[in-house]
């Protein structure tokens, strides 16, 4: 079953289809908008970042401040009169980047620690998994807050902090998969072919654990966005005036409940993306474990 087969099966039921649409829209938009922003900043032509948007997400216009949602301002405007929907769209690439890098980094580190633990066992397993437990036992948010507080408010450090708290669950997952796969006959066959352990892990174990990993990681994309938003909500994201979903939600709280849209609209967008990822991940799990 190829990629298209998987997509066709996903699209045949409403919940996974909805998830697929949300996730595709989010990452699709983020890719386009992110590239524009990147090219814009590299060519010192920042307005390129908002050519696709309704207005400049940074320019205040005091006459429009705190307008409720309407057709001209889908999600209303903030205290400085900036269109919230525009700022949400402008902020999307950051969240997409964070989620992809954090989950990707988690998978990378987790597989390096977890697969040898499960496959080789013995002392390697003990050392690797106790090391994992050490990180798992540490409260994720506090570790992230500490790292950012120490090294400064920069996107790199936020991502780094998140990867550090993110990989342990993947290490456990990969270990469990390795334990399952190493007892399959084809691993014996590969051993008998004279393949050394590291080739068996790289060429047989990792690909075989991808089915499980793909569905878990998809759900996790949403989780990482959520945690990143929480970091930003706590004031640890990228500094103002750059828009960010979590920090917008946080700032809007000063104007709650009278100007409810300022806080609730960005929060609503976070919720939609997180739920979309969860629906898609759930659907993927059904499709990937059912077929074969």
């Amino acid at each position, binding site marked *: 079953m190829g990629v298209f087969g998987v997509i066709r099966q996903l699209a045949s039921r409403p919940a996974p289809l909805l998830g697929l649409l949300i996730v595709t829209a989010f990452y699709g938009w983020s890719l386009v908008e992110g590239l524009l922003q990147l090219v814009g900043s590299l060519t010192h032509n920042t307005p390129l970042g908002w050519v696709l948007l309704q207005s400049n997400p940074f320019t205040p216009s005091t006459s429009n401040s705190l307008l409720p949602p309407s057709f001209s301002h889908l999600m209303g405007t903030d205290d400085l009169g900036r269109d919230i929907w525009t700022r949400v769209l402008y902020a999307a690439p950051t969240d997409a980047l964070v989620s992809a890098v954090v989950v990707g980094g988690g998978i990378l580190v987790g597989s390096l620690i977890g697969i040898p633990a499960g496959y080789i066992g013995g002392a390697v397993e003990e050392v690797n998994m106790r090391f994992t437990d050490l990180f798992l036992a540490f409260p994720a948010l506090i570790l992230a807050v500490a790292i950012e507080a120490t090294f400064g408010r920069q996107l790199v450090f936020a991502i780094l902090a998140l990867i550090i708290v993110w990989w342990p669950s993947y290490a456990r997952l990969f270990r469990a998969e390795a334990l399952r796969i190493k007892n399959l*006959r084809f691993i014996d066959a*590969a*051993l008998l072919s004279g393949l050394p352990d590291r080739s068996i892990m790289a060429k047989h174990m990792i690909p075989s654990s991808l089915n499980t990993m793909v569905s878990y990681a998809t759900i996790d994309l949403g989780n990482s966005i959520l945690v990143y938003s929480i970091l930003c909500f706590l004031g640890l994201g990228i500094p103002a005036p750059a828009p960010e979903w979590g920090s917008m939600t946080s700032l809007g709280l000063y104007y709650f409940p009278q100007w409810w849209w300022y806080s609730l609209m960005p929060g609503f967008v976070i919720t939609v993306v997180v739920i979309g990822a969860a629906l898609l991940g759930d659907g993927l799990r059904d499709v990937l474990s059912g077929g074969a």
Partner: protein
Amino acid sequence: MLRVEGLTVDYRAGGGTVHALRDVSLSINEGEIVGIVGESGSGKSTLALAVSRLLRSPPAIQREGSIAFRGSDISQMKPSQIDRVRGTGIFMVFQDPFLSLNPLMKVKDQIAEVIAVRMKRSSTPFDRSSAEGEVVAHLKTVRIGDAEDIAERYPHQISGGQIQRVMLAMALAARPQLLVADEPTTALDVTTQAQILAVFKEIVEKTKMGVLYVTHDLAVAGVICDRMAVLYGGMVQEAGPTDKILFDPKHPYTEGLMNSIPSKTKNEGPLTAIKGSFNPEGLEKICSFAPRCPMAREECRRGVPAQTPVDGRTVRCINYGENYES
């Protein structure tokens, strides 16, 4: 080439101990097919796995004996040494075809993997396209008709018989000196089985590899093996040239096995089955077949019968002299 001596393997689990193999000795020379015949639980798969060093320990423990392959004891090797013996030294074909190939890799990639290992060992540069040519050639040798097409497929897209042929093609690609085959045709239907056995014999004649062929089917053993050993209760009960054992069995167990094969040509009435079933308890100090043997006597329980040479083979039965293991 392969010399197993006094091999004793126990399984320990949940406080109990099962003697899977007791004092098993056998040897295999180049170009020779040696059959291991026995019923379920006789220890034949344990023997195959021990020779390939695939026994999982725990629960398996090799208590005594040695498995010498080209002069060095496999059971004492370090993991890095065993890696070098596998593939080009010892290769194994498994009983269940559907589980022995990686479902995520194309047939040609799995065979090419074996070729890559072989090339590396002989310090020959690995060339992808010539390896793929070799893959197709091996697939043709094992009588896969549309070899080019099958090579491009994934394991779930081909049949069980084809997978067993692919495993044989892998064995050809590895060019091992010893091939361990654990019931490679059991999961297949009879016509496929006959074809694969024919391919098997042809390959052995051509490559001069030694084969340890494990089966529960005396007919299969009769077709393919030069010598055979009948295993019961983890012990070799009778061992010698295939013809001698099949046409003139001496051990009551071998006789019982022969009698329980239905005749192709005449109706003999109800089949004679060996009564009872194998129970490993309380067999340490007696003939392990005694509880089920129609000829069992008082003397059978005096000790474990020793291997006694009778008419060109060895038999563990006191009917051929009251010799016991010390």
